[in-house]
């Protein structure tokens, strides 16, 4: 079927079970009935009665099923659509509401003088007092600390030479609120390649945390908003680039899988992962390879949501060109899947899925662990006490 909206791709399913064989959640907990049954198979049976598949709650939307599928079924998105159906008649838990609305929380906190500092303090106290646990958030975890100044506020103070070549940085929530250093590194790399970086304050959260917690209507509003902005930039010939692989997957693929409008396809052609963009420059002979040699051994955990984009491993290619030695961790999904591993009832599953990766990281035969995804980095840090960085932070050191 030509239409890529997920509900139409279910018809492609051959029932081959590859998705179930490759599902990290099923491997960790047998109560989950698996991607094939929940999405494509049950999709055919909805006519029979009002019902919900309770075990759908286990799906982490890591998209291993989509990648395993030989028939191009958007299995995980079918699951997310089903999850949204569930929440039409079921209230959200407080933890789900909180975890889905990181952007809203951050904006609230920013309105209070020294809000970030207090809230970081509050989070450690809250954790110590078991408040998170009471809210349904995994008490074992540290919540991501807020940066003193969000990236977008600090952005105007970054000195850039103006250039005819421009990109818009889609920061995503995590880089903006928690790890602005990734945004700084991105600007440095792009400047070194002759690009001026713009930001667009009208972008909202990509919607990924909303989708996985069943706030689909809200996610749709975000999608409409963001896509209008992306198309506006497209008309001006300015690409939108993001170092966050879950954001880029959402903007490029999940919007049209979920909401199925042509505009989502069109917008997708103007969105790039940061390293994908750099590799494209390289292919056009426009990449600045005048590096200071990176004499580093790196262990690369490739995020699921990067794999799903089917763009290869551009970060590995470029960092190796800059002299780094990049080994792939090759240990599957880290288990956190955005806000999944932050839920109290999913913590254990999340850690079980990540165990193989933790073991690999703990071998510590490298200088740094790199990973493009913010929550993967948190999971690795939590599981190993070794703090990974975004590959763009390493590349920035080469200029």
């Amino acid at each position, binding site marked *: *079927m*030509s*239409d890529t909206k997920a509900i*139409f791709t*279910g*018809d*492609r*399913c*051959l*029932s*081959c*079970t590859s998705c179930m064989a490759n599902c990290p959640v099923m491997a960790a907990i047998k109560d989950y*009935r698996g991607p*094939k*049954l929940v999405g*494509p*198979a*049950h999709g*055919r*049976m*909805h*006519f*029979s*009665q009002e*019902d*919900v*598949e*309770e075990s759908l709650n286990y799906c982490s939307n890591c998209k291993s099923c989509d990648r395993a599928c030989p*028939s191009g079924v958007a299995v995980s998105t079918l699951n997310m659509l089903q999850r949204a159906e569930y929440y039409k008649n079921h209230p959200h838990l407080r933890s789900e509401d909180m975890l889905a609305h990181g952007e809203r929380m951050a904006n609230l906190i920013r309105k209070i003088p020294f809000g970030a500092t207090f809230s970081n303090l509050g989070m450690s106290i809250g954790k110590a007092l078991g408040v998170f646990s009471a809210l349904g958030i995994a008490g074992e975890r540290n919540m991501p600390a807020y940066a003193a100044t969000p990236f977008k506020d600090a952005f105007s103070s970054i000195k850039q030479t103006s250039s005819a070549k421009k990109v818009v940085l889609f920061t995503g929530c995590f880089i903006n609120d928690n790890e602005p250093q990734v945004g700084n590194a991105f600007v440095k790399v792009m400047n070194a390649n002759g690009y001026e970086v713009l930001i667009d304050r009208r972008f909202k959260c990509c919607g990924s945390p909303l989708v996985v917690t069943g706030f689909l209507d809200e996610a749709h509003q975000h999608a409409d908003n963001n896509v209008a902005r992306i198309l506006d930039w497209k008309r001006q010939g300015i690409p939108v680039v993001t170092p966050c692989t879950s954001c880029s997957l959402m903007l490029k693929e999940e919007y049209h899988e979920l909401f199925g409008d042509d505009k989502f396809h069109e917008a997708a052609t103007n969105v790039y992962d940061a390293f994908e963009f750099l590799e494209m420059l390289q292919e056009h002979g426009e990449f600045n390879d005048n590096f200071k040699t990176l004499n580093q051994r790196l262990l690369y955990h490739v995020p699921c949501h990067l794999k799903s984009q089917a763009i290869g491993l551009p970060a590995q290619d470029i960092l190796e060109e800059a002299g780094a030695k990049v080994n792939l961790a090759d240990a599957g999904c880290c288990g956190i899947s955005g806000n999944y591993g932050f839920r109290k009832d999913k913590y254990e599953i999340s850690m079980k899925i990540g165990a193989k990766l933790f073991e690999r990281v703990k071998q510590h035969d490298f200088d740094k662990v790199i990973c493009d995804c913010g929550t993967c980095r948190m999971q690795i840090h939590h599981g190993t006490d070794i703090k990974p960085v975004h590959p763009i932070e390493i590349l920035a050191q080469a200029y």
Partner: protein
Amino acid sequence: MEKTTVVVIGGGATGLGILRDLSMRGVKALLVEKNDLVNGASSRYHGLLHSGGRYAVKDQEAAKECIIENQIMRKIGKSCVEPCGGMFTRLDIDDPAYEELWVKGCADSGIEATPITLDEAFRLEPRLSRKHVKSAYLVPDAAVDGFRMAWQLIDSSKRYGGQLKTYTEVIGFDTVNGELRGVKVRNQFTGEEYEIGCDIAVNAAGGWAGFVGKLAGVEIGVQPDKGTLIAFNQRIVNHVVNRLHKSSDGDIFVPHGSITILGTSSMSVPDPEDTSTSRAEVESLIKIGEQTFEDLRDFRILRTFAGSRPLYIPPGGAVGRSASRGFAIVDHEQDGLKGLFTIVGGKFTTYRLMAEKMCDQICAKLGNNTPCRTADEPLVEEVSQADKDRARKFFPSYGTNLAATRLGVDRFKKVVERLEADPESRELVCECENVTRAEVEEICKDDTSFIVNDVRRRTRIGMGTCQGNFCALRAAALFAELGTEPSAKDSLARMKEFLQGRWKGIRPVLLGRTLRETEMTRSIYELSMNVTGGDAR
């Protein structure tokens, strides 16, 4: 010698309706069928419970019968009828004058045909062609599951003493001085031949009525008229969607459980056993179907199948679509054979009415004055909502209602008990149609299950997306363990037989995703399992 009052020949809708009707009137009756139930036109069909709209112009008598029987079946057949409603759509290439005739025909026949706006039609059926559809009406069509209805008719008959012998073929009649004494039959599995004594026999063999007549030396004017249908993997439509034009090929879509059935063609064939289908027939049906649904080719076809309408041809009568869809009852006393009746022709939708008329005549002959009650009493008792709610936690999601209507109250209770006691029995044998091991086991044990296909027809294993790819092995294993037939133990043969049955309908549509699916099946069974026993060299 085994004895009964009436032997009913043929396990199609008509024969089953007669068995139930006679049993309810207190007449001892036994039905013999040479295959499994509804092996002919009563399952190789659209599964459409006509509102009568289809006949509103050409045959208002039939239209009136349809709407009355439709309303009766909705009432008595809640476990086999899906009241999805129907829609008639006229396309730009269809004659607007026919629409006027049709509207009047519906009004005259008592069929409520409600005109709706095109916006409403597209809202109800989003895949309808925006380009071609010019007008639309809602009618009270419904979908009916021939398999479930058949076994529910049996359950109902058995409550009143009715008996059933499947895989029992009639091979002759025992007559003395022009009077029927019994029916000679053969067991299809053991080859054993024996006689069943009776006063009356009813030839309700549908497309095979002519052959049965020949055994008694009487001529029956029945012309098998083959119709080919396509089963799609999804519910493409929410309603039965009919073309509003003079009845023709490929102009009805029926949402049938998890699938959609498109049909049909019309072709006179010499042999009702001819259920072959061809790529050319499929192509011609799709060509017509895509006039109503432009993106039809994007939907995956599961299989094709064909069955023969048993058209009654009075001496010198018309054939094909012009033949009457009415039915005829022949008392062969007129041919010098007292005790034999034939009922032939008609339509699935009016099976109950046909049975009633037939049984009125039989009862008159037997001096039985009990009135027909088949229109008043439900076929089976419904599983209560409370029982379904309680059972829900043991069934896969979306699986409780379907299991309840397939199994009926008693078997449902047994299955739920097993699901509760043995969590492993909750596993799915058929992942596409959501069928639990407990349900498959229950039907495997039934003494009317002789081959795995019998289990399939009653549970829907192997009838979904993968067409037996994953369940064939599991089902054959369970059947070997629990089946009461000695041949059940030959699980490899039973499994191959089952898969061959699935492939019969797949071969004419081996293209696109169906081809990929089938290649996977072939790899699993022929390569990984080496079921053909081929030599690796």
